[in-house]
């Protein structure tokens, strides 16, 4: 392999003409995108919130043990049993000890449960996104580059997956795998099942995007150059084409993550996702629906958590798309 070809992928775009007084500097694609991104206030705000959320998710367990919080601790003394187990006091039992109140029937602290739910929701969403992106990228790039029967085969498989009644299948597989499989049980199993179900059936979306991009990229000069210098398939696919696909993949990922968070919430909502007592945002929302009139505060808490997360990822994703691919606007 000749080393020279590797730079071809990063061919700098002609830099925008700056004022004559300034020193002219070559800027990489990444730098240009970063400058554009910084100008987009909404996207930056979204990015900051996303980083905070990830920190929260990673630190959820340490935070809980540091403050001695137990998301599953029952405080039924804070409930009015004669009223059917609703929290005592206004605003769903808000107090200094329980800043966001407690849940009906069990009296568990909502703030702790939202924190606990963050790592479950985000881990499932990230895992599922990673899985579908990996499959989608590999198959999409192959379909786009090789064309012919490879493309036909992969594209038909994509069609099959797209036509799949995903929700029904998700419910079926989640139900049938309950109680132990692959040497796992309990929470790790449920999370793995969720990641698999959500991730494995969503790859064609990513696959199609990557395939489309590859179709146009493979006719570009740097690919021809690499091929004429003797580069083989895998090298061209992953060293030449892939770096140029990072933009769209990244953008699509940030848009896919919030969808997956909602999907996780939806499956937990249907009772086939995370099992109680493990806190998850979807599970909390499901619980809260039954009390939306008499204890609306309960629904607001997980609802707001999902809302903020989805909004932040969407803003970040939109900002990234504009920054990396301004022509798409």
């Amino acid at each position, binding site marked *: 392999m000749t080393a020279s070809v590797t730079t071809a992928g990063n061919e700098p775009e002609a830099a925008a003409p700056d004022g004559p007084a300034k020193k002219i500097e070559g800027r990489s694609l990444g730098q240009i995108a970063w400058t554009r991104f910084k100008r987009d206030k909404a996207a930056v705000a979204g990015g900051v919130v996303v980083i905070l959320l990830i920190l929260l998710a990673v630190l959820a367990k340490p935070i809980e043990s540091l403050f001695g919080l137990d998301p599953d601790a029952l405080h039924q003394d804070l409930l009015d049993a004669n009223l*059917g187990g609703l929290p005592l006091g206004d605003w769903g039992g808000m107090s200094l000890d329980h800043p966001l109140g407690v849940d009906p*029937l069990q009296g568990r602290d909502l703030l702790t449960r939202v924190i606990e739910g963050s790592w479950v929701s985000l881990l499932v969403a990230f895992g599922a996104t990673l899985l579908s992106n990996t499959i989608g990228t590999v198959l999409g790039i192959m379909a786009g580059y090789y064309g012919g029967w490879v493309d036909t085969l992969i594209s038909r498989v994509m069609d099959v997956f797209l036509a799949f009644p995903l929700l029904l299948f998700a419910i079926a597989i989640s139900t049938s795998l309950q*109680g132990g499989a692959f040497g796992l049980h309990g929470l790790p199993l449920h999370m793995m099942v969720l990641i698999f179900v959500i991730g494995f059936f969503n790859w064609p979306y990513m696959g199609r995007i990557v395939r489309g991009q590859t179709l146009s990229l493979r006719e570009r000069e740097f690919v021809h150059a690499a091929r004429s210098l003797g580069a083989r398939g895998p090298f061209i696919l992953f060293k030449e084409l892939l770096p140029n696909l990072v933009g769209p993949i990244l953008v699509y990922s940030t848009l896919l993550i919030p969808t997956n968070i909602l999907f996780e919430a939806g499956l937990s909502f249907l009772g*086939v996702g995370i099992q109680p007592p493990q806190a998850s945002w979807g599970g909390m929302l499901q619980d809260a629906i039954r009390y939306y009139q008499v204890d609306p505060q309960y629904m607001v808490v997980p609802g707001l958590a999902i809302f903020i997360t989805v909004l932040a990822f969407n803003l970040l994703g939109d900002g990234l798309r504009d920054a990396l691919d301004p022509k798409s606007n």
Partner: protein
Amino acid sequence: MRRSRTVALTAMAAAAVLVVTGCSSSSKSGDSSSSSAAGAGADAATKNIVNASDKKGGTVTFEMKGTPDSLDPGNTYYAYIYNFSRLYARPLTTFNPAAGEDGNKLVPDLAESMGQPSADGLSWTYKLRKGLKYDDGTPITSKDVKYAVERSNFAPDVNSNGPTYFHDLLVDNPTPYAGPYKDKEGDLKSIETPDDTTIVFHLQHPFADFDYLVSAPQTAPVPQAKDTGADYVKHIVSSGSFKFESYEDGKQATLVPNTNWDKSTDPIRKQLPDKIQLKMNIDQATIDKDLLAGNAQVDLVGGGVDPQTQAQILQNPKLKAKTDNAYGGRLVYLAINSKVAPFDNVECRKAVQFAIDKVSVQTAEGGPIRGQIANTVLPPDIPGHQDFNLYETKDNKGDEAKAKDALKACGKDGINTVLSARTERATEVAAATSIQAALKKVGINAEIQQYPQGKYLTDSAGAPQFTQDHNIGLMMMQWGADWPTGYGFLQQVVDGRAIKASGNSNLSQLNDPSVNKLIDDAAVNPDKAAREKIYGDIDKKVMEQAVIVPLTYFKVFLYRPDSATNLASTPAFSGEYDYLNIGSAK
């Protein structure tokens, strides 16, 4: 686009939450004077018939969440259809339309008197009333009653919903009878109809509760010529005071007075409204609103209002005065699987008995208004109930020390097991969570698994092999009697011979010869008092075996609209109002 998927998810979930609850009929209400009574009228319909009236006319609207298993009297197992079907299908005997204790009394309906058992107790004879007619004017004969029992008990592939007590109890033909659909010429020889008004049942062994058994809608007459199998529900022939005007599967049914019904043949029915409407698949919150506004008169399912409506009503004394908080004749319990290690050891089961905080469970179930803390298998309103508590803990809040001692006696430091609950039942899952928290304190790790309620008894908790494969040692369960006697309550849940590979209700898989023998003794004992004592003894034996942890005696919380007349909460049908004579006040 993909994002709309979540919307669909939410809609589906909403639908899933609405799935019907309940199993079958039972039980009386006795003292349901609830905790903090406000207003003189609360619980009035558990003691007397409220708004008693003979006023005719108007429309009575029934609404229900979900759909019934079937309106076909020979193909149903829900207490509320047992109750409702009496409007258009008269069984041989039925429950007196009255409140409280009186509602548990059996009265002859199609039969002119209660059954006459033979001296050996092996045959029961009923005489039909004279002058009975269907809604088309043709006479009702005892052959139609015989046919109704045959189609409902001997054709499980066509009419699969109902129980098959008759099949299990009646003497079968020398070559087993294949049912009226497969064997069009033959019939069941053990039901004889010597003339058009007499019917004789021949049993395999004496059965003291037989009058209760024939109160099931399965004995309501069906003319063979009009029976179209599973489609019969679309054109049900009426023998009662109302007949079908229209029926739309899964949507609604309209009943109008049956002009061929003769008051002189029927001492209990009144035929008050001009029209009875049944609307299906209505959201529980909507039903509650309609009841409060007087747009609907009855919630057919009769499980009580939604938690939110409940809170609103309880906070308003005026509304609270119009409610009935009655026993639902049901036990909420935790079944311990005696076939899954280490719960095959009675000491390990005792550890669970001692560990559970029943107050916490009661709160999770919705507080005292939704159930009273239970310590026996038989609810207090089933004859034969005795008050005792083999596993006493302070204030019923559980006792860690005693539980740990029992665990030690079992030779264990900790246990890992699975606790099953039904997905659609939020309070059941909440109660499971409470149990899990209590068990964790003594070293029993119970992982909660939810299963869909529609297949809970056929595929998961009620399938012994499945529980074995999935290490399901603990199962959330509710049970209501098929008729209000100890036999009707206990037989299906504690008799070892009732264990089935699928559709099992004896979740603990208790197969104790002494319990089985007591059940047989009670079934053949003609003396009521002696029977009731035996049921109390069975209860004690089961509790000694520690296979069932009684949690609460379930209570319903019904709203009683002013627009309805003749409302009486009857223990015979899970605390529901008796649907026979409800009229419109408007």
